[in-house]
């Protein structure tokens, strides 16, 4: 269960303060598929980053299962990002010097306590599931943008998170690839019961969500 209370994000720029997120209250029940829509610059990414523990709110709270994540210590927050959240960025987000398998295994390796052999077996299985079984040893630059995005999804799943946060994960991909990748994400939501919060411009896709959040000017509009 996720709830945001009075969430704000103000950026200080040369032209004064920008209220990217201007007071958002939002609840997403566990296991739900929620879609966030809104025009470019409306504050969607800023909101997602605050929910995912990547960007400290200027005000307000992000409560996950009863804990305000922004009250956690630095190391607890790192563990939260690592175990509870699978983040899929808007842009290419694999480490270029690591093979796909290493990229996928890395979050599990950071999550100490795991056995390296098991971790790599799991990483390889996830990549296989994403249709990348033949590219385990490839470097990110050696595969297509769509394949990179699949590898990111595999990486997001490696620690079996409670919540996937996907910020326009397909905006730079062709339509066919977009459909395939969305299918993967929806399947994860359905089959694993993982909460999915998806930022998208694709209204047809948003229609499939159980909850649609429309944002404009940093606020939720109906």
């Amino acid at each position, binding site marked *: 269960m996720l709830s945001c209370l009075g969430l704000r994000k103000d950026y200080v720029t040369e032209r004064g303060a920008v209220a990217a997120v201007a007071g958002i209250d939002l609840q997403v029940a566990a296991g739900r598929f929620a879609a966030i829509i809104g025009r470019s610059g409306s504050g969607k990414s800023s909101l997602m980053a605050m929910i995912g523990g990547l960007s400290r709110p200027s005000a307000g709270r992000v409560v996950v299962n009863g804990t305000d994540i922004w009250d956690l210590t630095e190391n607890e927050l*790192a563990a939260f990002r690592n175990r509870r959240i699978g983040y899929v960025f808007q842009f290419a987000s694999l480490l270029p010097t*690591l093979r796909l398998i290493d990229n996928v295994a890395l979050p599990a390796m950071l999550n100490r306590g795991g056995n390296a052999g098991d971790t790599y077996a799991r990483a390889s299985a996830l990549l296989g599931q994403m249709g990348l079984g033949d590219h385990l040893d490839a470097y990110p630059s050696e595969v297509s943008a769509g394949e990179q995005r699949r590898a990111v999804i595999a990486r997001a799943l490696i620690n079996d998170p409670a919540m996937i946060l996907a910020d326009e994960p397909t905006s730079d991909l062709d339509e066919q690839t977009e459909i395939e990748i969305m299918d993967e994400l929806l399947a994860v939501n359905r089959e694993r019961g993982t909460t999915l919060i998806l930022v998208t411009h694709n209204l047809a896709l948003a229609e499939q969500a159980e909850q649609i959040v429309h944002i404009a000017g940093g606020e939720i509009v109906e």
Partner: protein
Amino acid sequence: MTADRRGLRWLLASLALQNLGRRKARSFLLIAAVAVASGVVFTGATLMRSIDRSMAVGFTRMGADMMVVSEGALTNITAALLTVEPTDLVLDADLFAKAQLTSVSRATPQKIARVEHSGIGSHHESADLIGFDPALDFTIQPWLVEKLNRELLPGDVILGAGREAPLGSQLLIFGKPHTVYGRLGKTGVGTHERGVFMSFRTLDALATSIGGHGGGSPPAALQPGKVSGFLVELAPGAAPLQARFAILSTLKGVKVVTGDSTMSGIRQGLAALLDGVLALMVLMFASTALMVCVLFSAIVTERRGELGLLKAIGARRSQIVGMMVIEAVIATGIGGALGVVLGILVMRLYERSLVYYLENVGVPFVWLDTPQMVAVAVAAIVLASVIGALGALYPAWRASRSDPYDLVRGEG
């Protein structure tokens, strides 16, 4: 399947290594800069310690600060050391023991007899037999370049560099067998190089033969309780002029001879030079540390997105900082090792001219022994690595403080 059995540490270290490989030219320049610094430091430290030790050896080898002989006795003053010439003018053996001069730390007596037909060397050759007290001596034994593997015993003789005879061989002096115990290094001083050195006991045993041969009495220096002169080492901090005055006013009928002062001037110059080298080394290290810091600030900036990503997937701050520090330590460690190799090559190359120069100014050069050299090398490499760690620490720590989202967006 490529399920590698390797740990996180390995993964982060290989990430660091690959990051170095991404910008080959830059990594090469960093390594080269550190190599130059570490080479200078390693070479400087090795030479400094070698020269330091050489000078220490030089000083003890030098013999003495002063020589005290009977008024009117002949003396041989050379740049390198003081020696007493054979003379019939003698002093009491207990002169210094009685006087108790505070400005004198050590005074070692010597007896010298110039003999002919002793059986040493060719028939007509005269030889100096020099007696010393092995317990008090500090001017002869430091010159030993080779010796038997035992204590000096009665009946043993030590040969000056100018005399040939294998160690352990027998040498007849006035028909009496003596054992060649050791050989002294070259000093350039005739008395020393042609001398035959022995303990007072050994020399005393020869007294009758020496006297008897010529038909007369033995030389004055061989009389019991008499010596040819004393070699004196001043107490630390004692001023030579005052010591000289104290000796002259306390002891009657003596002459005080001091060594050449230009040598000590050169030595002081060398010591000042070494201080300069030390200062240069410290500066070199400081500037290398700053350079690494500046470079890693740039590297961290360039890699902000990746660091943010690592943070976003749950890397702790310590892991982010650790990764950057490992990267720096690998580069500077390699640079440090390379510098040591470079330093060794340079020293090999200039060894001859260096040794020649130092010996010219009266400092016999002694290289550091291998374990010490290895210790200096290890210290240089460790120091280089520490510089890398320190240089990368601050920029990495600063970046690791930012929110991951700011890092991936290229801000913060």
